[in-house]
């Protein structure tokens, strides 16, 4: 079983592979020119009472990039799960390559060339990149793993994709961006006719995103169909041939990307008009709330950093993945260990930070990875939201919880943040990305806080939810809080911040204020640092 599919080219280098695919596709296209690669008709899917998909139609042509666009909970994830065989639709027909498909399983989907790249990684943390790439389709000789061959093919594939990835590294030693690259490589290992990408750039740097786009262009020219889920307008503009808008599990419209406008798409998606993505924030810098002097972390990810943030303004930190920007604010909050340097919160020296003390001093941290560090998925929203405030007398006295007060407070907060549906007893695991972020934001409202550290605040959430996060920051700043935003998404951090630090290789490369805050300047400060580093 393990070795047979490979004999058919399951693990050949993709270039050769795709050429093979191309010839086959051409034959098919010649015989049935009008048939799309993937044709879904009237697909419905129900989960215990909730209708996730309601008679969806979708066509994806060979060589086309088809964007699925919609808010969280619109049914995009369910739809790509149906296409990739994770669960069967309740009704509707499914044609792939002209054939009607029944009883699709993930294995079968891969065999016929449907290859999904999910946001939640399908990688096994304790295995190496290479072992993960070949998982379930290992190359064997007489039942014995042929590791040299697999190593060779893995390296060839990674080189071909231009990823900076070591096949022998364990997944849990990799950054999120590198995990994403491994995930994409895994999807492209084998015969691919339809590639599904679910927010693939969420944790990639600009450069890696560029590489991915080149790759996508190459796949398109080789007649591979792509389903692409993204909330980023810029990507949709750059890549899409057609866009299908979903809302509340229903197909709203399929448009040609070339003739549609951003406003039109967002309006279709939300069912309302959104003028501006980034709110206009009035910054009124006041006193220094966070000050960091010569801070160096124990693991060396941040070195000799001087940095301050004032109340009444948003301080941004931009930088490439792995530049130490997340580690810096995590150190302030007390999750990363420092080796030297001074941290001051509101002029008081803050030695040996721990999350508990940080909260007591009014510092809150919103982690980038809401699943790993944010929420206890098996517990209800209420418990997750009140977690950071339980040491307060408002929630507990003498170690005994005040449940009624907790319920009323959290219900009020989640109502204010417009949690949909507004049931705070649901488990956090049942929520989509945007709602999970709302639960995280809700934590901030349970206690008096003055400093807010946001780590990649808009990763994995849709436009509507992003807007709410930005509005939330605006309210914080305008009521006099100090907000620090760390983001790999340049437009976001440029638009939100009043002062912007650029970090590179663990150091502050530049501090930009006012009109200096341009994409050009940020990029050039990466570049300048790079040059000096290489010269040195």
């Amino acid at each position: 079983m393990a070795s047979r599919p490979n004999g058919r080219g399951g693990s050949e280098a993709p270039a050769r592979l795709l050429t093979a695919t191309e010839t086959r596709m051409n034959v098919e296209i010649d015989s049935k020119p009008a048939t799309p690669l993937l044709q879904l008709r009237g697909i419905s899917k129900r989960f215990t009472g909730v209708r996730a998909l309601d008679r969806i139609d979708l066509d994806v042509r060979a060589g086309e990039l088809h964007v699925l666009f919609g808010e969280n909970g619109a049914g995009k994830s369910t739809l790509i799960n149906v296409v990739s065989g994770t669960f069967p639709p309740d009704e509707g027909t499914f044609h792939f390559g002209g054939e009607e498909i029944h009883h699709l399983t993930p294995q079968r989907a891969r065999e016929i060339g449907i290859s999904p790249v999910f946001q939640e990684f399908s990688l096994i943390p304790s295995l190496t990149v290479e072992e993960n790439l070949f998982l379930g389709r290992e190359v064997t000789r007489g039942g014995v793993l042929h590791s040299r061959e697999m190593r060779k093919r893995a390296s060839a594939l990674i080189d071909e994709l231009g990823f900076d990835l070591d096949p022998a590294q364990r997944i849990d030693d990799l950054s999120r961006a590198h995990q994403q690259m491994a995930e994409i490589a895994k999807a492209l290992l084998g015969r691919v006719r339809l590639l599904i990408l679910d927010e693939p750039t969420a944790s990639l740097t600009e450069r890696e995103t560029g590489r991915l786009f080149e790759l996508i262009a190459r796949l398109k020219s080789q007649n591979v169909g792509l389903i692409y889920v993204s909330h980023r307008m810029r990507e949709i503009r750059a890549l899409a041939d057609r866009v299908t808008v979903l809302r509340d599990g229903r197909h709203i419209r399929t448009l040609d990307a070339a003739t549609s406008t951003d406003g039109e798409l967002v309006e279709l998606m939300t069912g309302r008009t959104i003028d501006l993505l980034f709110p206009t924030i009035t910054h009124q810098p006041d006193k220094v709330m966070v000050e960091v002097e010569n801070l160096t972390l124990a693991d060396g990810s941040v070195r000799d950093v001087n940095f301050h943030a004032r109340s009444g303004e948003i301080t941004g930190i931009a930088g490439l993945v792995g530049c130490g920007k997340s580690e810096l604010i995590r150190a302030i909050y007390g999750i990363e260990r420092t080796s030297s340097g001074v941290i001051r919160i509101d002029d008081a020296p803050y030695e040996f930070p721990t999350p508990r003390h940080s909260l007591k001093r009014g510092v809150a941290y919103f982690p980038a990875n809401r699943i790993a560090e944010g929420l206890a998925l098996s517990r209800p929203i209420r418990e997750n939201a009140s977690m950071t405030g339980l040491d307060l007398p408002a929630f507990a006295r003498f170690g005994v919880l005040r449940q009624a007060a907790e319920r009323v407070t959290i219900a009020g907060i989640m109502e204010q943040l417009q949690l949909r549906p507004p049931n705070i007893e649901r488990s956090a695991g049942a929520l989509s990305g945007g709602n999970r972020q709302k639960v995280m934001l809700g934590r901030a409202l349970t206690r008096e806080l003055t400093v807010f550290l946001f780590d990649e605040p808009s990763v994995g959430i849709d436009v509507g939810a992003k807007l709410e996060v930005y509005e939330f920051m605006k309210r914080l700043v305008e009521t006099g809080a100090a907000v620090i935003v760390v983001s790999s998404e340049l437009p976001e951090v440029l638009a939100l911040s009043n002062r912007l630090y650029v970090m590179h290789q663990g150091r502050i490369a530049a501090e930009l204020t006012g009109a200096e805050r341009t994409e050009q300047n940020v990029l050039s400060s990466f570049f300048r640092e790079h040059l000096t580093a290489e010269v040195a």
Partner: protein
Amino acid sequence: MNTALVAAAPRHAISLRSIAGRIGLLPALLVLLVAGMSAVDAQFYGLINVLNILRNASLLAIVACGQALVIIAGGFDLSVGAVVALASVVTAKAMAATAAAFPGNNALIIASGVAAGLGSGAVVGLVNGFCVARLKVSGFVVTLGTMSATAGVGLMITNGIPVYGMPEIFVKGFGRAQALGLPTAAHIALIVILVMVFAQRRTLFGRYVYAIGGNVDAAVVSGVTIQRHIVGTYVVSSVLAALTGILLTAQVGSGQASFGGDRMMLQSIAAAVIGGVSLRGGVGRIEIVAISALFLTILGNALNLLHVDSRLQPVFLGVIMVAAVALDELSRRSKPRV
């Protein structure tokens, strides 16, 4: 007040479904078992048998409550059976020693014995907790080690010979006594269960245990002090196991290193798991675990009354445990995200 009313309304509407979902099949199975056995064998509902069931179920429930707490926090306590034995012999020895020093002073003798027994449990719990929380050794390995060590200490103290010399009143007036028609063990188990349910639902400790088991990294980021609470779960588990050891000692009238053991440990885990405690941590309710302990005890009793081969009985326990977890997994699947 208004908000509370509004919030209560939708909860009421879904209560029928959610009751089935939350408690599961267990109460139904329990009723079925009791009804079936009562029909088959009149001996089953005889007073002696009922008291016997209640006594055994109480002992198991006390241990299982502690075990459940540890598992909810994401740990595992294999040492509970050995702690039952250790507490039993330590209690008996301490009473014998105090009785020799202060003959006739029953209050002092009993107090010192009980304190020594519970204390020995607390020490094992502290060692477990320290190794798990500080040294970051997995709970499975740590408690496997302390299980072995504790059992060894128990045997060393007694050389395998039962320890006598406890005051008459401790055995007749406490261990074998009844109040309001119920054995003492049942009263104590009820108190333990009530306190644990309260702790779980209404105290910071209970909430933090859920949070740590649900996602330890998220709990850290949320400012929860982790180590203290993990140590707490192991101490509670060991102290409850020790309490069971003392109750057994009082009931039998001698301290024995053969009490508890692997059987008690396995049953406590089975009770927790069948009672809906997830081995992934973060999920589980003490009251259901207590019902589950009652269920397991009645099942064992029923198999005995039906003259099922005692070697076959563990097979039943095994099948039921796996089936319970399989059902739990089944119900977890295909939940939608909104």
